[in-house]
């Protein structure tokens, strides 16, 4: 792993709390890692598992989902649904060889700018230690060739991108 590796974290932030927490962290001039690319969603429950998989496939080293504390959801229990999905998704990702630290869920209320900033700092360092993920280029593409040696007839098509891009 090179010294200059900067993790790319895609952050899905709930409009009603965590996005405001990020805003607050900004206006309060809290210094924290610039590695998260925030995406505002209306609720942490808006984050479908396929969003997470797509982010990972297309180059993210980690995904952060941030929502309101349980009991404080703008839509009553959206965040609990997000938690259930997250727990199941995490178990499934483990089967694909993806470390737990790469996908995280944090609760950050609108007043908790420091909580969000600390979560981003912590996650950035954890992923920096794990190294890059680069799923498509380092997992899908290298495994597209053949197993044993090269029998000299490997077709060019095995090295091209999948026909149906996700």
């Amino acid at each position, binding site marked *: 792993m090179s010294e200059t590796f900067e993790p790319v974290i895609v952050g899905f932030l709930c409009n009603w709390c965590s996005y405001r927490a990020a805003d607050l962290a900004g206006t309060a001039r809290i210094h924290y890692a610039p590695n998260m690319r925030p995406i505002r969603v209306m609720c942490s429950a808006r984050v*479908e*598992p*396929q969003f*997470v*998989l*797509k982010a*990972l*496939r297309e180059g993210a080293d980690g995904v952060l989902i941030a929502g309101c*504390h*349980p*009991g404080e*959801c703008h839509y*009553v*229990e959206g965040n*609990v*649904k997000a*938690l*259930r*999905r997250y*727990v*199941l*998704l995490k*178990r*499934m990702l483990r*089967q*694909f*060889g*993806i*470390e737990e630290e790469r996908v995280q869920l944090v*609760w950050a209320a609108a007043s908790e700018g420091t909580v969000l900033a600390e979560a981003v700092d912590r996650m950035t360092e954890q992923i920096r230690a*794990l190294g890059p993920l680069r*799923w498509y280029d*380092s*997992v*899908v593409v290298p*495994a*597209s*060739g*053949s*197993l*044993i*040696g*090269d*029998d000299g*007839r*490997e*077709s060019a*098509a*095995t090295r091209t991108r*999948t*026909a*149906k891009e*996700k």
Partner: protein
Amino acid sequence: MATKHKPKFAMYWAASCGGCEISVLNIGEKILAVDEAFDVVFWPCVADYKVKDVEGYRDGYIDLCLFNGAIRSSENEEMAHLLRKKSKVLVAFGSCASEGCIPALSNLTTAEATFRAVYTDNVSTDNSQGILPQPVTKVPEGKIRIPSFYQTVKCLEQVVPVDYIMPGCPPEAHQIAAVMDAIISGAELPKPGGAVIGAGTLAVCHECPRQKNEKKIARFYRPHEIVPDAETCLLEQGIVCMGIATRGGCGALCPKVGMRCEGCYGPLDDIPDQGANMVSAIASVIEAGSGPLGGVDEAALEREIEAALETLADPAGTFYRFSMAQSMLQRVRSNGS
């Protein structure tokens, strides 16, 4: 006997079990209409044509080619390229060709581990010298080549362009018959370029006659752990039925007889990943965490949800049983921790 004016028909199997061929024969006496309408010019299962014959055909000679089976080896891929070149209409026939199916479950492990399981560690295999198949073997007379084994199982569409996709493990006979009828009668088919034919556009649940109520699943059961009642939705009973995330068209055959839908018709239109879709659906209907939330202990809530979901065995293998090759992640990361 091949006559000139009849359209030419071919069917090929790559990494598959042969069930697709059986399903074609299952269309009953309609097979006579197929025989009447087409000349079979290649179909290893039923007719004695060789690859050499296919190589000899001019490009586009075959009017309709049903290709079943996944791309597991270099031979599968070569045949895919050959048949693409020789066929006017190439159909990814069945779940293996359309999305990987059971062969692609081995994408959850490595090819090396697959070889170990098959050739050395298998309890019924005696291979004390640890001999593994090699793509090239030197013998006194020269070199012997066999196809090489790919690290990742792919579906047909990932190696050649496909005109139509016909899902199912296997595609149901009535769907095959309907498609054959349409082709023979010259009815208009959807625009080629990967369109799904011979399947529904709604989920399996839509065809399932079981009683559906509001779902609150306390825990999950594997099929051998429970005798489902005959009336209620299987998912409500804690059986991981994939019907909610699976394309219909099969007539909900499995849930009708008390067996969970395993998802063989693949995801619905515009759903890029069946497994992710299933995670989303399942997580919405479990009971854990549905109690009052005021002043809830966050760590306890997470543990409660974890405990409920712990009863769901092998999520990746269950949710991607048929669609691993077409999924977003596609395979395991073997260089990870």
